[in-house]
Structures are given as structure tokens and as C-alpha cells.
């Protein structure tokens, strides 16, 4: 991470990072809309979501259920319960409709970030799972240790 005293990285600022103009014995707890917007919309996190989605499509098995199991183990060290499975299955369905409805949306979402896109994967499928990983990585369980 690049630190610059005169211009704090926007992501760090969103989490109330100290400006390093003075010592900080204890960081303040930061749980604000600004932090939420960063995790939702910062290209860094959307790029990370896409790369994780690529892993899911490559290694997560053939069904939505097996893919959910795979990503839950990676992100939370557990498998989803029934409620989570139902929520995310519904989410996958509407996203699949959205991205197959207009292929431009998928191309745009996949273009976020600098890492090259795995061209072997279906774009609609990859965008759908990228959206789903965005949901998972924005949960409290993924963000905090506790």
C-alpha cells in the first residue's frame, strides 16, 4: 500500500486512517457509510471479486450449490446454511438475467481493474459470480475478524 502524508489514499481515508501528521496510540473504530461505499465501489475490491469469481468457475464444481460451498469455505471457512443458500441462489438468478439481458453490462463490469480477464470463461457467468462475490465480501463476516 502506498502511503503519502500530503495525500492519504482515499481507501485509507474512508476507514479513518491516521494522516500520520502525529502519533496514533489507538485507531478509532470506523464503520461508516464511507467505508461501505469504498468496499462496494472501489475498483480494487471489484477487481478482487472478479478474480475470486474466476477461481470459483475454475475450481468450484459444476453446480451453483457446489460453487457456493467452495466460495464460503474460502471466505468464511464454513459452508452456507439453508437461508444463505436460498438468498444467494435467488441473487444468482436475477443477476444471470441481468447480465444475459444486455451483454454490455458484463463486459463493463469485467473491465474493472488491471488484472487480465480469464478469456476461457463465459462472460455472463463470470459477471454473475463477480456480483455474487461482491455480496459475500461485503458481509461483516468477511470484513472483520470477529
Amino acid at each position, binding site marked *: 500500500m502506498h502511503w503519502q502524508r500530503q495525500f492519504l489514499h482515499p481507501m485509507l481515508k474512508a476507514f479513518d486512517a491516521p494522516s500520520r501528521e502525529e502519533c496514533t496510540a489507538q485507531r478509532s473504530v470506523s464503520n461508516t457509510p464511507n467505508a461501505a461505499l469504498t468496499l462496494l465501489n472501489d475498483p480494487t475490491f471489484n477487481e478482487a471479486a472478479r478474480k475470486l469469481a474466476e477461481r470459483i468457475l475454475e475450481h468450484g464444481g459444476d453446480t451453483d450449490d457446489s460453487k457456493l460451498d467452495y466460495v464460503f469455505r474460502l471466505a468464511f471457512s464454513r459452508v452456507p446454511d439453508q437461508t444463505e443458500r436460498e438468498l444467494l441462489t435467488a441473487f444468482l438468478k436475477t443477476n444471470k438475467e441481468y447480465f444475459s439481458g444486455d451483454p454490455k453490462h458484463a463486459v*463493463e463490469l469485467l473491465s474493472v481493474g488491471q488484472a487480465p480477464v480469464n478469456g476461457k470463461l463465459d462472460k455472463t457467468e463470470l459477471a454473475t459470480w463477480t456480483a455474487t462475490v461482491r455480496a459475500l465480501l461485503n458481509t461483516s463476516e468477511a470484513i472483520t475478524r470477529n
Partner: protein
Amino acid sequence: MQLPNDPQLLLKRRTFLSSAGVGLGSMALSSLAGKDASAAEASKSLYPALSGLPHFAAKAKRVIFLCMAGGPSHLETFDYKPKLEEMHGKPMPTSFTEGQPIAQLQGQSLKCQGPLTKFKKYGKNGQEISDFLPYHAKMADDICIIKSMVTEQINHDPAHTFMNTGTAISGRPSMGSWFTYGLGSESENLPGFVVLTSTGGRNPQPIASRQWGTGFLPSRYQGVQFNSSGDPVDYVRSPKGISLEQQKQLITTINKLNSHRNEKVQNPEIATRIAAYEMAFRMQTSVPELMDFSDETQETLDMYGAKPGDGSYASNCLLARRLAERDVRFIHLYHRGWDHHGGLVNYMNICSKLTDQPTWALLTDLKQRGMLEDTLIVWGGEFGRTPMFQGKGGAGRDHHIKGFSMWMAGGGIKPGISYGATDELGYNSVENIVHVRDLHATMLHQLGIDHNRFNVKFQGLDMRLTGVEGANVIKEIVA
């Protein structure tokens, strides 16, 4: 391998003990709070008011706190001391300074420094205002100048902490958090406590985000800092390819996952996060609209001297009015640049040029729109400056805590008066002394809160903004 589903099975002994403690505590709390908690949940607002608040009819709905960070000199703004002029260059009498806290002048010979500008009387009651502040002169009949402030901390950071939280101990809630916690926020689309900063003047001192922290209050009441230049809030736009409708669905799903998780782990930070994500989504549309000054007339922009997006105090003042119109509860501006240890005349000119007119514009604009009566404006630094000379590059003044000036306006404060006084050299507040805690008590009073009854239990104590040493509402300045 099948991993266990139930997080309870994943708990280690130590985690169990600590979370059981929290769990029992929160059970006790919710049974104590009883009806309050369910009433709060029923409310649509993300920032509901505590039940029973306000204690009585409020004069003001919101606060705009204009912090002149660094500590402006009272002796060159509102507190004219002819005797100090007479004594200029002579040794400062030790009867004033002996045993008193001193910041940078420690061990140096202390000489009197006469006022570095002229004063005139303005308004119906002849309020004394210096030539550095011609626009303040125009609002002499609108502001109540308190000339007898005292604080307890002589260095910037702890003094800000003291001004914001009523104590120098870090980790207590900022006043903006207290107000928003107690009264909630009526703004549906913006945070209840917004912070804006600008810079210009001498040696801008850092302002840490701790200054708008919530301490032991729920973290959703923490101040949210908007950038004053560029996008006010970073990442208010969804990623490419994601429509607003998709984003909404995403956030709904995140919040459902979080609340489902919270049924098991019962962590108040998750509740805060759900509120934060909800607010984040609303801000994706409300913030661009807030920042779009195209609905402001050229006349208004000229009045403030604001160029949209320039990050100036002037733009922040205009933004403050727009935030006030959108029912934000506590709007806290910091202008960093008032630390005039040397070159005071030069830097007073710079700071006054940057802040005098916009402050007047804000007050006047609110007045024209009929909003001054329910908006409490507070202006002031974290402390004042010494009657003694300091010469870090031309005549200046050191930090001073025993007497300084602030002003309040609107929100049911008597306009056009001065209150309290310092001694003949402007060193000690001697008449109607106003401690920071009294200021807090008065601010709370104007928003309908009895500071003695506004407690939060923490570490076995009844914590309050005004502390335990006693604080008084300044009845004489309340209209």
C-alpha cells in the same frame, strides 16, 4: 469434509466467555431499555432519537460549529484591551503569569504585546470588533460574543479533544455524536453528523478523525468526513456495468446476509454496518445532488465567495447551508490555519480573508431563508492567544487557555450582545466565566436537552458530555 455450519460450534472457550459476557450484558440492556429498543426498531430512520428526548421544547434543530482550528487571537478579534496597548513592550506582570501553564514561551522573558489592529464599535449595542473582520462587523446585531471562555488544555490536539468531548482523555464521544445519538437525525439520505475541513493560514495543525469519533456511543453516530474538493465522498458511483437497481439488490442481499448472521452472533457492530450500507446506497444519489451547486444563483455564490469544488472554507460554508437544509443534525467545519505564533498580522489577514465573508454569508443566507432561528451557529477556536509577545517570524502570540472569545448565533441565543469579560490585559476571564462545559450545556439546552439528564452508562459511570465537575446553562444569553 463437512465443515460445521453452526458458528457456535466454531467458538473457542475464550471467545465464548467474552461473547457470553456481551450477550448477557446486551440481554440486560435490552430488557432495561425495554420499550425504547422496539420503538427504535420500528422507526424508519437510521438515526432514531432516544425515547424521552428532547427533554423540553427545543429552540434549535441543528448545530453548525465553525471551528477556527489553531486558536484565533481574542485580542485581535473581539476583545479590545487599551491597557495592553499602554503596556506594550513592558514586562508582563508576574502576578498574571506565575505558576500558570505556558506553551512555547516557557523560560522566555514575557513582554506585553499591544493589540495589532484597531477596533471599532458596531451595531445597536456597540459590539467591539476588530478591523480584521469587516464582515463580522456587519453581523454585530446577530451574534452573541462570549468574551470569557476558558479551557483546560494548552496544546492543539488535546484542546480540540477537550472542546469536542469535554475532556482531554481520548476515546470519549464527540459532541456531534452526542447530539446525533440523543436527538437522532431527520435526514433520510445523509449522515446525521458531517465534518468538512479547509486549510489556509499559518502552520495548519493536524485534525485527527478521533475528533469526530463516537467513543463508547454506537459507532453509527460517528462523524462522516466529506472531502471538500473533488468528489465529496469517494466511490459514490457503482462500478461500470452495474445499474442502480442492481446495486440496490446487492445491498439488500448484503444486509439480509448480515442480519441473518447477526441473529447468531449478536454483534452491535453488525447492526451499525447494516445501517451504514443502507445509508451508503442512499448517498449514491443524495451526495451528487448535494454537491451540484447549479441550483444556486450567481448572487449566492458571490455572497459566499465560493467556487464549487475548490475545497475552500467558503465552499464549505455553502455546503453547510445545503446540509442544514437537508436536516443534517450536526455540521462541523474546521478551518486550519489560526496558529499565529508569529507574523500574526499577515496571517490574520490571510485567515480573515478566507473566513470572514463566508461566515457572514452563511449566517445571512440562513437568516434570509428563515433558518437561523432553528440553527445554532458556534464560532471559535480550541483556545485563544497570549497577551504576551511571541516572535516566530514577526510579532505573534502563544497558546492561551485562561481567557478567549467565541460567539454563538441563531437557535434561540440573544443576538447583538457580549457576555463576560477578561481582565484589563486580556489574560484571565474574570466576569461571567464560561467553561467549555458551560458552552456544551448551553448548546444542549438550545436543542432541548438537559445536560444533567443526558447520561450513558459506561464502565460503571454515568457518562455525559458535560462531565461530573458541574456545568451551567448560560441563562443570560438565552433568548
